[in-house]
């Protein structure tokens, strides 16, 4: 798994890199909505609508679990990606200071579980560094990159679409910037994060991505939906 090639539907030329590897056995990772060709849809829809939708390029996702060895995980995260464990129902974001700015985000899932997102190409590297930094501590790290799709909803009516779709109270008073909740979205399960005012991130199971995409199209029809390139 050291070498993976991430297909980016927003930049289809990236697939030609595959030839540069000269190895057809290099796995190509595609997003769940690759087949929808959102890039083409985006050119048709334009902008200036009430709701804007995008699917993020393949995002590296690591599930971290620790009970009594929480402090060890905390320090390993600090040294590896310079991020601290978030409080209950909160998230933390850090941006690497190197030449290419990588964004890391860790989300609270349960008292002993967190989900860390990172650029897909770095997931294996971060996992390896976390493991070596943790030593013999019993902390579980599972790479679930392939299991989820990361979607983004924004715009002045994004909150209204959420109100129709989830049972959670998404009023800004209750669902403030940085808050993460695991809840239901229509009939699917979602990890919902408030990125900024009127900007939300949905992490859904890959097999539900099509369903959620169709739901969002219908639910946002009255406000006007535009598909944006992330």
């Amino acid at each position, binding site marked *: 798994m050291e070498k993976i090639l991430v297909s980016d539907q927003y930049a289809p030329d990236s697939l030609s890199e595959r030839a540069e590897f000269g190895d057809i056995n290099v796995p190509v990772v595609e997003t769940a909505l690759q087949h929808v060709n959102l890039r083409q849809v985006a050119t048709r829809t334009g902008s200036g609508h009430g709701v804007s939708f995008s699917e993020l390029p393949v995002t590296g996702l690591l599930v971290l679990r620790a009970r009594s060895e929480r402090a060890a995980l905390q320090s390993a995260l600090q040294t590896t990606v310079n991020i601290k464990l978030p409080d209950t129902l909160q998230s933390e974001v850090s941006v690497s200071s190197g030449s290419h700015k990588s964004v890391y985000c860790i989300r609270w899932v349960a*008292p002993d*579980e967190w989900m860390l997102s990172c650029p897909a190409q770095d997931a294996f590297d971060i996992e390896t560094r976390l493991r070596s930094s943790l030593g013999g501590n019993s902390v579980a790290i599972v790479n679930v990159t392939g299991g989820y799709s990361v979607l983004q909803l924004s715009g002045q009516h994004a909150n209204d679409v959420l109100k129709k779709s989830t049972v959670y109270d998404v009023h800004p008073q209750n669902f403030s910037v940085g808050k993460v909740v695991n809840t239901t979205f229509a009939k699917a399960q979602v990890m919902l994060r408030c990125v900024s005012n009127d900007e939300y991130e949905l992490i859904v199971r890959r097999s539900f991505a099509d369903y959620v995409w169709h739901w969002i199209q219908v639910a946002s029809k009255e406000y006007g939906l535009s598909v944006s390139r992330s």
Partner: protein
Amino acid sequence: MFNIYCPYCEEHREEEEFHPSGQAHLARPADADACTDKEWGDFLYFRKNPRGLHQELWQHTAGCRKFFNITRDTVSYQILETYKVGQSPQVKLPEVKLEEPRHG
């Protein structure tokens, strides 16, 4: 629809996110090899079905996925308390003389 307080997420959540898992505080016979068939049968199959206060095990399936306990009134559906697994309930249940379950 009603809201249930999840002791792990530390806030009220919609009922839809939860799943009930039956009676709470089921004690497995300490020595399963030495217990009688009746003790084992009671542990496996026989559950309370009270009219009134009941202690139940619930799971926050769509949220943090943790199990926790609820003291609930089965008549009014009122939830008197929720508490983590391993903690003791604060609300005491009334003593109910149960009819001896039939075996055989």
